[in-house]
């Protein structure tokens, strides 16, 4: 129980930091109208990415899986950029559907490519994800080059940040993320069974293919809602499950909610740091997360290598 309160304490601290820190001090107007919506956006995006990371890592049994590494975010971003160029409003259902389609398509492509190699290895999945992400990022750059007039604001979106989250997008995204969390929680047993491997899961009466497909849909939906709100923000989904697993243990029953809370705390703190450290200049949350997350990824690889040695 003490461990859960540690997590809640971290979340509360992150929220407090985000609400209290800024050049205007503790002006109530600013806290209520400016920092609160932004904090809510960071909480939603962080929770969505944390959840997606926990789902991907669980269902793929791969400690390196995360929406950023698998190409899910890149797929969502590419779809979002195409929507902007086509003039689709960010609050329209078409936008969310397109972003989800991009996320799911990219993830499925990575998975399918990795499966071609036969046994689904950790490395093959990461490699496939890198290839898919690289291609999609190149597509986005091409689109940005073609769309000269608006390319800067789009570039900003690709970088990932929460400068001005529209209330409409925030509401829809938060709803999608909450729904994904609830649906995933309802199937925590299946996710635990998947941890035993396909055969083990099968013996527990769980259909691995069906569960994999379902969790892919949940994770992609959560990721696409997060991208719609905050652009491409990496490493939240990778780091969070590893950190909270130390507190909760491996069962999805406690890992999933903890990943949502932990991701929310992590991104809220990163966003608050990004807008206060070099004030009045702002560092996008995506850049702050990459600065913290890339070394974490290296550490995971190093630890993995030592584990095998």
């Amino acid at each position, binding site marked *: 129980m003490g461990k859960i309160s540690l997590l809640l304490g971290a979340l509360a601290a992150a929220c407090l930091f985000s609400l209290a820190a800024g050049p*205007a001090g503790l002006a109530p107007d600013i806290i209520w109208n400016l920092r609160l919506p932004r904090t809510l956006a960071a909480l939603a995006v962080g929770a969505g990415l944390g959840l997606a990371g926990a789902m991907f890592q669980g269902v793929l049994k791969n400690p390196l899986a995360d929406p950023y590494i698998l190409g899910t975010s890149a797929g969502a971003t590419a779809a979002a950029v195409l929507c902007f160029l086509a003039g689709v409003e960010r609050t329209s259902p078409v936008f969310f559907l397109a972003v989800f389609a991009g996320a799911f398509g990219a993830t499925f492509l990575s998975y399918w490519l990795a499966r071609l190699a036969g046994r689904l290895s950790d490395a093959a999945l990461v490699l496939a994800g890198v290839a898919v992400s690289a291609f999609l990022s190149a597509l986005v750059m091409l689109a940005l080059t073609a769309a000269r007039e608006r390319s800067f*604001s789009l570039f900003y979106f690709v970088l990932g940040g929460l400068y001005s989250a529209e209330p409409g997008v925030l509401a829809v995204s938060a709803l999608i993320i909450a729904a994904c969390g609830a649906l995933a929680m309802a199937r925590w047993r299946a996710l635990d069974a998947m941890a035993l491997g396909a055969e083990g899961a099968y013996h527990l009466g769980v259909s691995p293919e069906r569960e994999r497909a379902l969790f892919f849909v949940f994770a992609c939906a959560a990721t696409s809602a997060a991208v719609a709100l905050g652009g491409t923000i990496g490493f939240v989904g990778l780091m969070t499950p590893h950190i909270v697993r130390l507190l909760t243990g491996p069962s999805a029953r406690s890992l999933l909610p903890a990943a949502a809370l932990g991701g929310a705390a992590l991104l809220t703190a990163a966003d608050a740091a990004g807008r206060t450290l070099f004030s*009045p200049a702002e560092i996008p949350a995506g850049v702050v997360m990459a600065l913290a997350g890339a070394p974490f990824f290296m550490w995971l690889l190093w630890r993995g290598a030592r584990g095998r040695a």
Partner: protein
Amino acid sequence: MAKLLAAVLLLCCAVQARALRAVSLLPSYTEIIFELGAGSDLVGVSNFCNWPPEAGRLEKTGDYLRPNIEKVYALEPDVVFTGAWAGASTGKQLSALGIKVVALPEERSVADILNTVRLIAAALGRKKEGEALARKLSALAPRPPAGEPVKLYIEVDAGGWTTGGLSFISDAARLAGGRNVFGGERRGFFQATWEETLLLDPEAALLFSVTEREFLSRPMAGTLAAVKAGRVITSLDRDAFTRPGPRLFGEIARLRSLLHGKN
């Protein structure tokens, strides 16, 4: 023999009179060259050079940070104008190919732009035209108008991308009778937090990439003095104001009349 001598002389004169072949790798340089009346000397421009309209019909050499060196070389230019700041490697590569490169310093004030005009004019052998153009331009924006400057927020790109005191844009605002609220920052282009912008409470907002509706939808935008006074300006030309070129001076005059009325 006399005929031959005359022919040789004529040929020499023809070579002398042959127009310079110039390539401009920056939109502002292209605009200055056309304004100097030397547009016909240009054989190539960057992909971003879209003004004057004739520039759009010239050969394109890529973007200014990474121009297509082979394309520039193939145009056989006598002189290439590039920014000294825009990656030294461009100038080095072109010089190594035996092409004369004029690398111009970055403009950090409006006066620097006039200096660029003179440098380009000199390199094109048009010193006199350069002086005349510099005089004409500085007459458009001679000095700040009398009276208190208007506190001005300048958003160049969506998401709070603004300029600090190290940009000519800040100086242009000063000449128009404004005071860039971020002018005290020792930076060029940077992303300012919205909270800081609200705190600085500008009396006018100059927007180049967002619509007024988008701007007003930001949290607490309605509390800004600029919004209360109805001074959200979206009518100035982004390219003209954000390029250190001749069109900026007309924009300064327009901003000046928007901020201080016609005086």
